[in-house]
């Protein structure tokens, strides 16, 4: 089983409310770029934080990029007291974001997403419009480097509408999602 599937399954089975963002969202939408971690934006409502902490417990989340002996436990209190977490787990690297630059919290991010079927799981995935908005706002060199391709991909979607790929269910059609409300006029 690949690590993206493993983590998505853990989150979906626990009914955690989240949106797939970042490089995995971009890949799912058609961007041919390599990424090593799964980024999600999670709902910071209390019940969801509890579900998230409980779901991730069995995959042993640890803070990434710090000395190993620092004590850390990703429980509800830790998530409530923090916002964004860069983690490594038994199934690979996972970034939890309470807010996405240029968009906002989970509720706003959700409106820039639509459901895709990923490995048989229905997942909310950030739209191309959402990716463009967040990357423009982040303004980092690595984000700006991917913008031309994402914008081209979005334009292709408008002109040819092939983004959903072959043999997809209606829920795989990103154009059917709420992100259409946020179409930008360039």
């Amino acid at each position: 089983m690949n690590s993206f599937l493993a983590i998505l399954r853990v989150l979906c089975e626990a009914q955690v409310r989240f949106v797939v963002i970042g490089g995995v969202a971009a890949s799912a939408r058609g961007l041919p770029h390599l990424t090593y971690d799964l980024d999600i934006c999670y709902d910071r409502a209390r019940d969801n934080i509890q579900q998230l902490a409980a779901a991730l417990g069995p995959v042993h989340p640890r803070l990434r990029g710090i000395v190993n002996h620092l004590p850390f436990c990703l429980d509800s209190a830790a998530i409530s007291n923090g916002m964004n977490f860069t983690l490594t787990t038994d199934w690979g690297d996972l970034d939890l974001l309470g807010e996405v630059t240029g968009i906002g919290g989970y509720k706003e991010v959700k409106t820039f997403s639509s459901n895709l079927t990923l490995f048989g799981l229905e997942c909310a995935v950030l739209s191309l419009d959402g990716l463009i908005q967040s990357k423009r706002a982040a303004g980092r060199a690595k984000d700006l480097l991917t913008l031309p391709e994402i914008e081209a991909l979005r334009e292709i979607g408008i002109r040819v509408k092939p983004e959903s790929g072959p043999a997809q269910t209606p829920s795989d059609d990103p154009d059917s999602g709420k992100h259409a409300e946020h179409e930008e006029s360039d």
Partner: protein
Amino acid sequence: MDRAQRDELIRLIASPPPGSKIAAAKEFGADLTLLVSMLELTPTERLKRLADAREFVRELQAAVRNSTHE
């Protein structure tokens, strides 16, 4: 994506409308044929390809590490 859409897409990236985002990406140096390949896949297939590429890079890095230790 059906065959007609694929053909339309290939024509579009070969000769993008001047001033379009597609033209800008091409000028930027993006390999737009890779977009076509990705768009022919389902989202799950795209992530499988990503996972495969990631695994390949990891194996490659491990091989390089091992070869330098020999």
